[in-house]
């Protein structure tokens, strides 16, 4: 799944960057260590214990944390359908996918922790609403076809965004993203396959698939963030090699890849302005309603409260398990005198 690094344009108090603060949009901050930009410009990687500008560190913490939060919140809309998957095969696939999302969250929290923050603090920030997750997960999964549409469109958009992050200048983030991207391609294919089955089934099944695509298409395009002209963090992130392509470039790439796939599905993308532009060599598409995106980011999407409440409840209700594991580990340690990791 996926998290993007953008907030609402007008600061509303809930778009605070993260536990360590800072947004870093000024070029060449005064605390930039000598040789830092040269490393990035030669496509070398910055590693955890290297000196780095605070703004670089804070930008990464904010982006990786938001990305991690998106992965674990993203388990909810699909988890909603595990018990009602139409066959054992689909159920096994969906469980494996949701488990992958948990894993992606853990890779990313681990990457964020190399920057000197604690996972527990990041979770607090998520639960308190100080850090965000991708707004796409605030939409409901109303039918089984939504699981297919999420895999095809949402994971498709995520892949378009994440592949460039495999070359991010910060080593641990780039390495986590390589792992994520490898696993993500099965996610998109299983969604496409589920939709293909529906769209080649009965009239009712095809209508269900079309309805899901109608609802997920525009939110998927919004996942790439505001258009370049309004993007808040882009310029500095580009210079630092955190971001490689602009929001609009990635969105265009996604549209160009997806339109022929929709044809193969026999489904229509809900945009009357969508057409091939021979001159540009790209598909033109209609105006995106960014007012809707910002409303959802502000907390006014269909499921914002439900998603966060569920997350907090799961965390609190699991507290006794975490405490019991610590107590058991302590007891074993006391009895054994010492414990060391096994070496194979």
């Amino acid at each position: 799944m996926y998290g993007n690094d953008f907030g609402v344009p007008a600061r509303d108090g809930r778009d605070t960057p993260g536990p360590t603060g800072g947004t870093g949009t000024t070029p060449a901050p005064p605390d930039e260590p000598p040789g830092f930009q040269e490393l990035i410009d030669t496509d070398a990687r910055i590693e955890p214990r290297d000196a780095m500008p605070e703004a670089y560190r804070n930008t990464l913490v904010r982006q990786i944390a938001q990305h991690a939060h998106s992965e674990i919140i993203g388990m909810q809309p699909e988890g909603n359908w595990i018990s009602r998957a139409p066959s054992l095969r689909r159920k096994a696939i969906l469980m494996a996918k949701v488990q992958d999302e948990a894993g992606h969250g853990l890779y990313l929290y681990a990457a964020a922790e190399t920057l000197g923050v604690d996972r527990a603090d990041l979770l607090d920030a998520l639960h308190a609403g100080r850090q965000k997750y991708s707004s796409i997960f605030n939409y409901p999964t109303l039918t089984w076809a939504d699981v297919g549409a999420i895999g095809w469109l949402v994971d498709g958009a995520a892949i378009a965004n994440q592949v460039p992050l495999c070359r991010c200048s910060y080593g641990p983030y780039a390495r986590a993203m390589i792992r994520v991207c490898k696993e993500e391609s099965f996610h998109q294919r299983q969604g496409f396959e589920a939709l293909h089955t529906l769209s080649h089934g009965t009239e009712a099944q095809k209508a269900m698939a079309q309805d899901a695509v109608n609802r997920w298409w525009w939110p998927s395009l919004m996942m790439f963030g505001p258009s370049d002209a309004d993007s808040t963090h882009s310029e500095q992130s580009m210079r630092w090699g955190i971001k490689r392509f602009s929001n609009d470039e990635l969105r265009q790439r996604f549209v160009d890849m997806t339109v022929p796939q929709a044809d193969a599905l026999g489904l229509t993308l809900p945009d009357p302005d969508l057409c091939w532009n021979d001159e540009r060599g790209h598909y033109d598409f209609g105006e995106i309603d960014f007012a809707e995106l910002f409303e959802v980011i502000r907390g006014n999407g269909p499921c914002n409260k439900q998603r966060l409440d569920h997350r907090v409840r799961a965390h609190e209700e699991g507290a006794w398990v975490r405490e019991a594991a610590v107590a058991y580990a302590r007891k074993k340690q006391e009895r054994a005198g010492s414990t060391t990791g096994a070496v194979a």
Partner: protein
Amino acid sequence: MSGVSTGSTGGGGSTGGRRDWPLWEVFVRSRRGLSHVHVGSLHAPDAEMALRNGRDLYTRRQEGVSLWVVPASAITASSPDEKDSFFDPAADKIYRHPTFYEVPEGVEHL
């Protein structure tokens, strides 16, 4: 931020005053004949759970045949600040490489 090769700041091995489980670094041998390679880190209450979590997190697609977990706090790392001076002694000893030596024309298997 010292003593950990991956730069992780967590104090692995003991829970201390931390609210999260200690941090472990995970190493995977992807197949026989290869050495264990660092793949990332995770939190776990003890070594046994770290191994189990490591299996679930890093080998869901048969990526490994053997796992090591090491408390992050047990790793001592060289400092990036001393990178140049620390590794400097190796820089001017080019005679340690075979390409330093001239071999007469026609001599083979050398």
